[in-house]
């Protein structure tokens, strides 16, 4: 792809004791793409994106984002720089209203019309009518949606979605896919996902991790055809 590289990781490494969670990973994200990260359980996917967004400190290697070295940047500063992360386990503020939840994201990027822009962000995911409810009282699917909406409301350049469709009904998954398609190419999406249908449907490129290392990178078709991937993962 000739597109501009938004993020590049080089020789990224993080060990926990003897466990090589992420082990010398090179990784590139092109601006505006939907990129999926897959791999068996324990392959190091969540650790890897945690290194990208700063939740886990980098042991060695480097990360550049939009031309800037962010390897040592703390997590909140990376968010400000344009990397948003939505949690695998839903991490909304259950005791605050839906509106407060979204407003926290909207005001973080310094919105000028906080109330209006918050409602607009809710409207985009169809939660506007529930603005005054406590977030904890939402259904699980709506909570996931709110989580994604908070990520979107930050208007990041890179949106990292950690297993966003987990526990969603099929109809909800379809709506979600539409939502993600709608944000590119303004944003770039990095998706960790177990649901292969979602991955193959959404992703333009796929990276496969195994034992903390990159097994393969390519288009969905290339990945499908890759024998190493098949034996390690798809073929089981």
């Amino acid at each position, binding site marked *: 792809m000739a597109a501009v590289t938004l993020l590049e990781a080089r020789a990224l490494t993080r060990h926990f004791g003897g466990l090589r969670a992420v082990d010398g990973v090179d990784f590139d994200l092109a601006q505006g793409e939907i990129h999926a990260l897959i791999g068996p359980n324990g392959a190091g996917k969540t650790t890897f994106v945690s290194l990208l*967004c700063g*939740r886990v400190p980098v042991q060695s290697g480097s990360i550049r984002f939009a031309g800037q070295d962010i390897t040592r940047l*703390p*997590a*909140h*500063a990376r*968010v*400000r720089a344009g990397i*948003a*992360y939505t*949690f695998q386990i839903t*991490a*909304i*503020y*259950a*005791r*605050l209203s839906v509106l*407060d939840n979204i*407003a*926290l*994201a909207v*005001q*973080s*990027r310094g919105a000028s019309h*906080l109330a209006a822009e918050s409602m607009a962000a809710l409207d985009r995911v169809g939660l506007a009518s529930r603005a005054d409810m406590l977030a904890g009282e939402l259904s699980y699917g709506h909570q996931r949606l709110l989580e994604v909406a*908070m990520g979107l409301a*930050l208007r990041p350049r890179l949106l990292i979605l950690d297993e966003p469709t987990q526990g969603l009904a099929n109809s909800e998954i379809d709506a979600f896919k539409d939502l993600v398609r709608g944000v590119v190419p303004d944003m770039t999406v990095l998706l960790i996902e177990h649901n292969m249908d979602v991955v193959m449907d959404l992703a333009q490129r796929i990276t496969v991790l195994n034992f903390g290392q990159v097994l393969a990178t390519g288009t969905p078709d290339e990945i499908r055809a890759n024998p190493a991937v098949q034996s390690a993962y798809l073929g089981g």
Partner: protein
Amino acid sequence: MTGNAFKVWALHLGVLAALLAAQFVLPAYHNGNLARIMVLAVYAMGFNIAFGYTGLLSLGHALFFGAGLYGMGMLVALAGWGAGAALTAGIAAGGAMALAVGLLALRTAGVSFMIVTLMFAQAGYLTILYYTPYTRGEEGIVIDRAARVLLGFDLSDDGVRYFAAFALFAAALLVKLALVRSPFGRVMVAMRENEERSRMLGYDPFRIKLAALVLSGIYAGAAGAAYGLLFGYVGASFASIQYSILPLLYVLLGGAGTVLGPFLGAALMFYLIDLASGITTAHLLVVGVALLVLVLFAPKGILGALRDRGLKWLP
């Protein structure tokens, strides 16, 4: 939304109006008590900013109260400063002390944060004793009546004292109300509710918590400085551990994370002890049992319980 905003302002302005009117209605004894309670409520409000809103349970707030008290008192007694300048210095001292403690203590969290703040406060208390030649240690010093004149008003006069305490309280209450309804107030609550989530929304937990703690320290410092000026005494006992526990008690009783809770808690606790001392000599028991009952049966305090039972708009 607008309906709620109206209710919120009506309630708080109503409370302020009632307090203002109380001066002319209540007997002298309760006037004196209310003046005291209002100043202590400012202290508790400051504690609430840290504990109730931001989730920082400090066991060392007496250090900030003491910084305000002694910052004001030493400047008046040793340097001959006027009340206004000394009051300002006391408030600044509270904030500066909170900044210094926060820079270190906020590297820890939870139980460690409690113990670190406790230790800093203990060191502060001992420092006051160490400088006994200047502070007169536990005996304390009297703030000369002549020095207790602010903008031409004699603070030792009962009426003036009441209005001074009221003015401080009203300012603190309104600032706090505006604060907790502001975007920053929302971020403080977000820190309390889920620090990691807030970090991943781009908020620096350290800076937010530090800002909240400094604000809290400014409130505590203002209360300390005002207490010394209004009641004419500066003593080490106000910096002892007991005075770190008091605001916690007030806030828990009235409702952590509520704007009026600290005042309600301070008033109830004051009269509880005052009345109990007429009935039983065992008022330590009253405090102890109150703490246990609260934490067991009403962990959210009075206003917190009301908020759960329908008054959702209560800030």
